[in-house]
């Protein structure tokens, strides 16, 4: 397979992989939202001793909601990239085969295909333009979600500190903070892998 085609094939596989990671991240975010709701219920049961935690639970809940929404948007974006890559791949494959055909036809007849080559090259350029803007959008969105997860980890530390004031609820609230922290790290890992995959796109 010629270099350009294999490069695009690798991109197609990479964007499909990113889409897979984002899907898994959104599943974890859903679990995170559930954990946040549970922690809020626990905070309410703990009463005045855990009043400071209510705001933090609400924050987690909001963060998980935003993460789910953003993951879904990013997942759609990654799917679009995958589709654009496939179109680009097919067009490049076609152009590669047309180039071979022109060689076989020789200089006298090869210009019969010039129209098709120009038309498809133009289409390829359009696809590249779309791909560039989709990739830049995806990059920004992945950075946003990574920022959320960074904040989530910081807030989980505060949550743990506040939990020490809640007496018999301390251990259960600490465990909840650990869960949320772990889930944030898991999402971060998926996003980091996606960002690494994205860095391999050469357009």
């Amino acid at each position, binding site marked *: 397979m010629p270099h350009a085609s294999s490069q695009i094939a690798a991109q197609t596989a990479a964007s499909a992989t990113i889409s897979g990671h984002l899907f898994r991240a959104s599943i974890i975010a859903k679990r995170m939202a559930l954990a946040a709701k549970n922690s809020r219920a626990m905070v309410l049961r703990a009463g005045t001793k855990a009043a400071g935690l209510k705001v933090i639970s609400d924050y987690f809940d909001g963060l998980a909601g935003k993460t789910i929404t953003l993951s879904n948007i990013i997942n759609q974006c990654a799917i679009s990239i995958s589709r654009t890559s496939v179109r680009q791949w*097919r067009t490049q494959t076609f152009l590669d085969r*047309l180039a071979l*055909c022109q060689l076989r*036809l020789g200089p006298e007849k090869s210009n019969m295909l010039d129209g098709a080559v120009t038309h498809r090259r133009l289409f390829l350029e359009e696809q590249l333009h779309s791909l560039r803007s989709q990739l830049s959008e995806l990059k920004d969105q992945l950075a946003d979600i990574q920022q959320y997860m960074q904040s989530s980890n910081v807030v989980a530390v505060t949550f743990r500190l506040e939990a020490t004031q809640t007496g018999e609820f301390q251990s259960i609230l600490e465990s909840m903070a650990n869960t949320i922290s772990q889930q944030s790290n898991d999402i971060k890992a998926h996003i980091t892998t996606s960002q690494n995959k994205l860095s391999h796109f050469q357009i």
Partner: protein
Amino acid sequence: MDAQKLFDDGHQWYVFGRDPEKPEKILDTNQYMIVDGKRSILLDPGGIEVFSTMLASVLKYVNIEHLTDLFASHQDPDIISSLGMWDQVLPNSSLHCSGIWEGFIRHFGMDNIEYKPIDDAGGRITLENIELDFIPAHYMHSSGNFNVYDPKSKILFSGDVGAALEPPGAPMFVDDFEQHVENMRFFHQRWMPSNEAKSHWIQRIRKLDIDILAPQHGRLFKGPDVQRFLDWFDQLDVGSAIK
């Protein structure tokens, strides 16, 4: 890729095959082109692996804008997996194939070419002057399958019927029918699923006046070898995988 002119009297028939550049493990295929003035039809244009060679070969005989129609006898990859490529080089052409395969064949990629479904009972296409008949050959071997008959040249494109599995470089025409039978036996016994469909097809084909029977693989049958083939096939028990 070898090209031979099969007929030239007002319109032309070409056969393309025996491609020495095709990847080794790919089954050799015969592609056909009928040229009628400014309209031409490719019969079973072939798989994606032969696309470049095939395009270069046909453009030696016609201008690209005169390639107006494609025909696929059925949906197999060696018949039409190049569709996604033809679709980009011939965006204004039409593909004629059984109506039952449209949703399947579109998986090969078809954004521009118009799909013209052929009814189960068969159909007809007029190029510039000549008429070609789409003859039903269902279950021979595909469930939605057609042959193409040209009454003027008396050539029948028979798709997989009459196909033979042979080493590369075999001659284009059958020269010794008895010897050739062994190249065809397994293919027909194993690929053709139904004795009933076979008899039905033979009955229909015997009514046609045929000079050349042109299959998609292997050698073509000419003159008395056409009847020899029909007689041999009539006696053959097919559908061997379930016996």
